[in-house]
């Protein structure tokens, strides 16, 4: 028995070291974000000392000069807005598709499944033209684009769940005089709560981190997301301010980590559920 305990102790120790190595890249960036920019490329693996320490100067540059806070704000707005719209619209659509079997709904379902396997490069050029033409190149408009492009996965997952809800519950509600709308919102929606969380998390992870779609669709003179802002800092010709980039990377990672730690259980469940359905 004690031998078993010892092995489990050694296992824990080894994994503790491995875990530390695993988060080391982020810690290294964090460490460098407090250094003066000229020292970052020269000595990235040493702790900041008196000579190289720059305090929070890099963060101030990132926020003031590169407008990083507004980028975080727009990303947050686009992510929250799109996810809410996707959840409401696609769950209603999925319920209708599963309950009303016509040629039209079946075709729509198959198209949604099909859209999941199409790589973004296939539609990126034409999608940016469509967005430009229809004036959807704003953070408000892009929500509609995300609804269209994210519908595939969401409809698919919701349909999978609706199939497992017994019809009798809804029939009982309808016989008692509920309209389909009321049936959906006060009977179906509460049952589907776990699926809402799974789909919400998968879509949040995708939209928050998405680079190419907003890069091609948004009017970049006015609105940037975090990924776009960082790409601009690095890609802009002339001098690249490594200090500000380090600070920006940390500012981009913080919201993700906060989100992760606050709903970690749901995220891991959502990923497992999404994969089994996919």
């Amino acid at each position, binding site marked *: 028995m004690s031998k078993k305990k010892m092995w*489990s*102790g050694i*296992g*824990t120790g080894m*994994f*503790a070291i*491995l*875990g530390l190595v*695993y*988060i080391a*890249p982020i810690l*290294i*960036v964090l460490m460098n974000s407090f250094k003066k920019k000229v020292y*970052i*490329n020269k000595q*990235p693996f040493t702790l900041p000392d008196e000579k190289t320490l720059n305090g929070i100067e890099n963060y101030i540059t990132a926020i003031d000069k590169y407008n990083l806070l507004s980028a975080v704000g727009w990303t947050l707005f686009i992510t929250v807005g799109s996810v809410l719209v996707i959840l409401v*619209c*696609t769950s209603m659509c999925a319920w*209708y598709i599963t309950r*009303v*079997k016509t040629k039209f709904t079946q075709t*729509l379902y198959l*198209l*949604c499944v099909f*859209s999941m*396997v*199409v*790589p973004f*490069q*296939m*539609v*990126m*050029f034409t999608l940016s033209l469509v967005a430009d033409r*229809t004036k959807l190149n704003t953070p408000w408009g892009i929500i*509609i*684009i995300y*609804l*269209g*492009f994210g*519908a595939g996965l969401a*409809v698919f997952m919701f349909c999978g769940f609706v199939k497992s809800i017994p019809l009798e519950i809804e*029939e009982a509600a*309808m016989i008692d005089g509920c309209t*389909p709308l009321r049936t959906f919102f006060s009977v179906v929606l509460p049952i589907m709560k776990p699926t809402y969380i799974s789909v919400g998390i998968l879509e949040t992870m995708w939209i*928050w*981190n998405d*680079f*190419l779609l907003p890069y091609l669709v948004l009017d970049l003179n006015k609105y940037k997301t975090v*990924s776009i802002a*960082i*790409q601009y800092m690095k890609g802009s010709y002339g001098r690249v301010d490594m200090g500000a980039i*380090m600070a920006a990377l940390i500012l*981009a*990672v913080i919201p993700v*980590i906060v989100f992760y730690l606050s709903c*970690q259980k749901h*995220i*891991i469940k959502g990923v*497992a559920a999404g*994969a089994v359905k996919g």
Partner: protein
Amino acid sequence: MEKAIKRYMPIFILPTFCAFILGFIVPFLMGIWLSFCKFTTVTDARFVGFSNYVDALKDTVFRHSFWYTALFAIVSLIMINVFAFLLALALTQKMKGTNLFRTIFFMPNLIGGIVLGYIWQLIFNGVLASFGTALGLNEWYGFWGLIILVSWQQIGYMMIIYIAGLQSIPGDVMEAAQIDGASGIQRLFKVTIPMMMPSITICMFLSITNGFKLFDQNLSLTAGEPSKMSEMMALNIFNTFYGRTGWEGVGQAKAVLFFILVVGIGMIQLRATRSKEVQQ
């Protein structure tokens, strides 16, 4: 009941339907049509038949990017799945702190590709600088850099799927094998892995399609340096569209080829591993 719901069709279906038409169907069909045209904006599109496809296939940089991407997808598939499976096995044993370790290994997955690329660029360049070289000087530095980056990002994700698979193996099957005198290794290969085939199918499907579709990480880590030698297919298509005027049609043709390739590989992979799945 169907009839009653049908009257509410517009409210339930139309928002998603319209957005789907606008955000997917129209761009998709337009994309197929434009791959047969020469154009710089849509209004001056002129039908040219298959010449875009011929140009795309003649493009040596595109062909190089295909082999580079294919190799990348295979190597990353193996790395990610082997390590994720081993981690999943280890973290389902009785051991203190497994939950914390799962949390840590999954975390990089939530960080965006652009951010990941720049985090690792700092580290790789720091290491390579001590050997007097840099990431952008050799296409194989970029290749292995991307492999490490993508493994770091996706091992945790696949690990979660494998853990879910491991936990769904019924305990009595394991017990029966144990009573019959199967050793640890035998149990792994004769019981665990066959029972895990559904999870393995999903993980392999996800990692190979992710490998082919990789874009953000490629753009931020190497941006194709040195001189487009580390450019993968998705980035090559992007650069064809936006880097060379007059080549938009060729870019679209490449995109169609890319689409067919990704779907084809996904299908073949699903067929191959589905056939090995056992009924539980």
